[in-house]
């Protein structure tokens, strides 16, 4: 097993306290990550009402499944993100299935709407990171970002993404690889 770079030693202490169901530890966890998780959830479900429910569900799941999180297998933040993202995707799919079962196409917006929605959601730039959403939006090629968003926030498989975008499966695969490499460059 490769040695993993663990950014915070405090994370281990936090986990230990979380597993003892310590209230302060949870508060710290919430303060630290709720904005990131809420942002991702919003990105998936697009409605604040539903996003509130999904964030609640996500933290309940995180709380219940803390013991199944293994720090050796991945970073805490990634695990939290995945719980929130998958809960949001599940919620979106079940609400779509309930409300408009036949209108699948309208649920998956094309590139332009994704773009617009992203801009709207990013208007309050909460995260004062060294690089802002605007920079990424401008630097990352639109067709690459669109693909990452479909797969990461939309929960699309390669096949579904290829269908949605009218692209050959091979192109989807190479484009995803290229997109992540480009992103990686942007953040380093």
């Amino acid at each position, binding site marked *: 097993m490769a040695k993993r770079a663990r950014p915070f030693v405090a994370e281990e202490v936090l986990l230990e306290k979380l597993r003892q169901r310590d209230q302060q530890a949870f508060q710290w966890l919430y303060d630290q990550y709720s904005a990131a998780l809420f942002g991702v959830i919003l990105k998936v479900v697009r409605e604040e009402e539903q996003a509130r429910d999904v964030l*609640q569900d996500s933290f309940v*799941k995180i709380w219940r*499944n803390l013991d199944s999180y293994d720090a050796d297998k991945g970073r805490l933040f990634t695990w939290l993100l*995945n719980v929130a993202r*998958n809960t949001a995707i599940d919620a979106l799919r079940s609400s779509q299935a309930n409300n408009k079962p036949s209108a699948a196409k309208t649920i998956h917006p094309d590139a332009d709407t994704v773009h617009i929605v992203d801009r709207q959601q990013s208007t309050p730039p909460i995260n004062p*990171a060294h690089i802002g959403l605007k920079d990424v939006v401008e630097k990352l090629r639109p067709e690459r970002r669109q693909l990452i968003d479909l797969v990461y926030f939309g929960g699309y*498989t390669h096949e579904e993404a290829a269908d949605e975008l009218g692209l050959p499966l091979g192109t989807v695969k190479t484009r995803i690889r290229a997109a992540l*490499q480009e992103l990686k460059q942007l953040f380093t």
Partner: protein
Amino acid sequence: MNIQDYIESGILDTYVLGATSDQERREVACLSAIYPEIQQEIDRLTETMEEYALLYSVEPPTDLKAQIMAQLAFGEAPVKPLFGSNGNGVSAAAPAPAGGTFAVSRPVFTMSWVAAASVAVVMLVFSYFLVSQLQQTQRATVSLQSGKDKLQTELTDLRVRQQNQDQALALLKLPGTKIISVQGNEKAPGGGMQVYWNEKTQQVAVAINKMPPLPADQQYQLWGLVIGADGKPQPTDAGVLDLTGDVQKQTRAIARANAFAVTIEKKGGSPTPTLSNLVAIGNV
């Protein structure tokens, strides 16, 4: 395998985006444990996606924190996560590329491995049983085969003797068959036999009463003797004798004879009798 090709295939990117199939996910998890390069690439991509997700951060409504905390139980003994019974929780954690995935699905793997191992053990024991059964059967077959061969040999021997006796008996029944008593001289004291001869069919058979045993390289040989006008005997080979005691039909034909005589010859018989070794004689 070529690590670089594997990394560049894009599967790790797909993995980090959470779009891999269960099988691909297991493959990546397995390979990343073996190859540090793969783990490093996963780490870099994971951090990239963390950064990317962070870009979308939106502060949740302030009242939500209290609402959520009201749903959680604090300060209790850790509750074990319920596998399977909590469908949502599991499905939420399952597609995670790292972290939850393995921890959640591990007990299922363990159960499968235990089940597979048990099946393997049962099969192994059963195979051993079958192999030992097979070996036992093979041993029995070999033993039966050798028994059968032995019986076959005995049966063949008996048939030959039976045939021989039948022919001798047939000779005895023929009209005109003469019985000549051939008695041992001083070289075979107490020895004697009956020679059955039919002049018409020229057949000869012998029933030995008793003859002294011979070394393995010697045999008794029967001769038909015709005494010529000059008083000199003209011998004709009537075949060698075996000492089994049964009535035996001789293979040589005798057309004319005044007497029958027995000499000791080398094994397999001689073309002419060694008269110095004459041990028995009887007149027709």
